[in-house]
């Protein structure tokens, strides 16, 4: 037997004239801004177009990307290592990790970059060996730490100190019960971290790390302190100064930074979706109350009844 379909409510929404008014005002302002940008002759869009595909600038973009990737890779490696060191029981490792963060967060990145650039002067030769004991390997600092390596080291070591705190708060955000459940199943510390804790911590770690990556993209312009002179900002500035047309070249650089940032944002979105799996019914990330895809009718009913808590890490009694 079919039940009669109820008559669905079709009511007019409450009129909101102020909404339309504000939208109109904002649109006019945006149009004025765009018009001004495009028609102001000082921006010299012809020069912008002419330099957009300049091979020197494309190469500068390449170096900027390389520095960003290198520095973030080094930073993330250091951050995970030091965050785990700080969570452990070995007081010496904890102390070392703490001191690293203290120093590299506490001094300006510009100063650190100058220091890495001066390393070949401060220490002409580097050697591997036992302190006060025999030395096994010796080489000239200049050969190993060229300007590119110094730039990546400087940016990466600084970044690692910031990311370490992010990683640590991510690891701490994972419920203690997850450690207990994994431990009770016979998993060891490393396995538990790798399979259970870090994947969940990523939900907390990815958004600020994406932010840091976008920030790093632009921080790479500081490597002129090393000095390293091949990346995007340095190259565009140099061309602009030579032509006596700095503004259009600043615009060229800005366009590329915007393009790369947009691509990074898409990547971040996908990472967040990946690490959010299983959490999509969470009130804080779900939003809107729309039941997520792949959920059975019955489950929707269960959740809608409000008698079940969707959060698997819900605190019940301590």
């Amino acid at each position, binding site marked *: 037997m079919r039940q009669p379909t109820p008559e669905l409510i079709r009511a007019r929404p409450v009129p909101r004239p102020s909404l339309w008014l504000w939208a109109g005002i904002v649109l006019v302002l945006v149009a004025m801004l765009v018009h001004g940008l495009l028609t102001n002759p000082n921006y010299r869009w012809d020069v912008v177009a002419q330099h957009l595909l300049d091979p020197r600038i494309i190469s500068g973009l390449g170096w900027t990307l390389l520095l960003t990737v290198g520095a973030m890779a080094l930073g993330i490696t250091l951050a995970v290592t030091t965050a785990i060191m700080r969570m452990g029981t070995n007081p010496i490792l904890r102390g070392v990790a703490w001191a690293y963060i203290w120093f590299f967060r506490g001094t300006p990145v510009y100063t650190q970059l100058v220091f890495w650039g001066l390393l070949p002067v401060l220490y002409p030769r580097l050697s591997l060996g036992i302190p006060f004991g025999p030395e096994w390997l010796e080489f000239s600092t200049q050969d190993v730490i060229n300007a590119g390596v110094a730039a990546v080291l400087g940016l990466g070591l600084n970044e690692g100190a910031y990311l370490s705190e992010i990683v640590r708060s991510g690891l701490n955000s994972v419920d203690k019960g997850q450690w207990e459940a994994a431990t*009770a199943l016979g998993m060891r510390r490393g396995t538990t971290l790798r399979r*259970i804790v870090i994947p969940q911590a990523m939900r907390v770690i990815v958004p600020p790390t994406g932010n840091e990556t976008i920030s790093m993209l632009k921080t790479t312009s500081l490597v002129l302190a090393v000095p390293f002179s091949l990346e995007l900002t340095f190259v565009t500035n140099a061309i602009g100064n030579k032509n006596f047309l700095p503004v259009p070249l600043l615009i060229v650089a800005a366009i590329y930074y915007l393009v790369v940032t947009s691509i990074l944002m898409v990547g971040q979105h996908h990472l967040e979706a990946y690490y959010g799996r299983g959490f999509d019914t969470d009130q804080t990330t779900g939003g809107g109350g729309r039941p997520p895809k792949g959920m059975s009718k019955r489950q929707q009913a269960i959740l809608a009844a409000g008698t079940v808590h969707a959060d698997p*890490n819900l605190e019940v009694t301590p």
Partner: protein
Amino acid sequence: MTAMVQAKGVHKFFGDLHVLKGVDLTVGRGEVCVILGPSGSGKSTLIRCINELEQISAGRMFVDGELMGLREVGGRLHRLNDQEIARQRAKIGMVFQRFNLFPHMTALENVMEAPRQVRRVPRADAERVARDQLARVGLSDRADHYPAQLSGGQQQRVAIARALAMEPELMLFDEPTSALDPELVGEVLGVMQELAASGMTMIVVTHEVGFAREVADQVVFMDDGVVVERGTPGKVIDAPQQQRTRDFFAKVL
């Protein structure tokens, strides 16, 4: 034949707090032991000492005749390393009050995880075992759901399947139904009752006196870190000898 679990004079301190004050406990193979007692009496601590989630401060804990967490060499005690302790734990299943399922894995992945990572079972075999265990707790049709998409009772049944996938010789339950809405308690107790009937050795901390009466071989009443009274459900629940036990059941029954 040795008992499955034997606690001899177990003490546990948290700093200055003396939580277990000389507990003796013997649970035979295939036996179901239900631990009852007021909140804060040390029930959770005791079963967490059995699988070494907590280290005992004094006494000895044996599981399957093996000294837990320690090795005695020439009259001196040595702590076992992480790997050895993990191996001892792997044959003891545990079910928690708050389920503690891995939220980023589906029900099936939750059940497969420990066999894959700890016992290095090939994927296909692990999946077959996991599907069998999910069927055993009546959740075959929920294998691909994430924990957040399951009701509390279903989550707890997945947690039981997850522990069973390691083929434990002993199952520990710490208030498995206390976080559940009343109408969901029955389905979890039902699964536990079937497990008991299949001959699994079980130690269950619970407030479900009905379950204790029906399923337990041995009921242990704890208060203030000691075992006050033990025996069959008929003796401890219905004809307690000690005043403390009588007071407790007068309140909960």
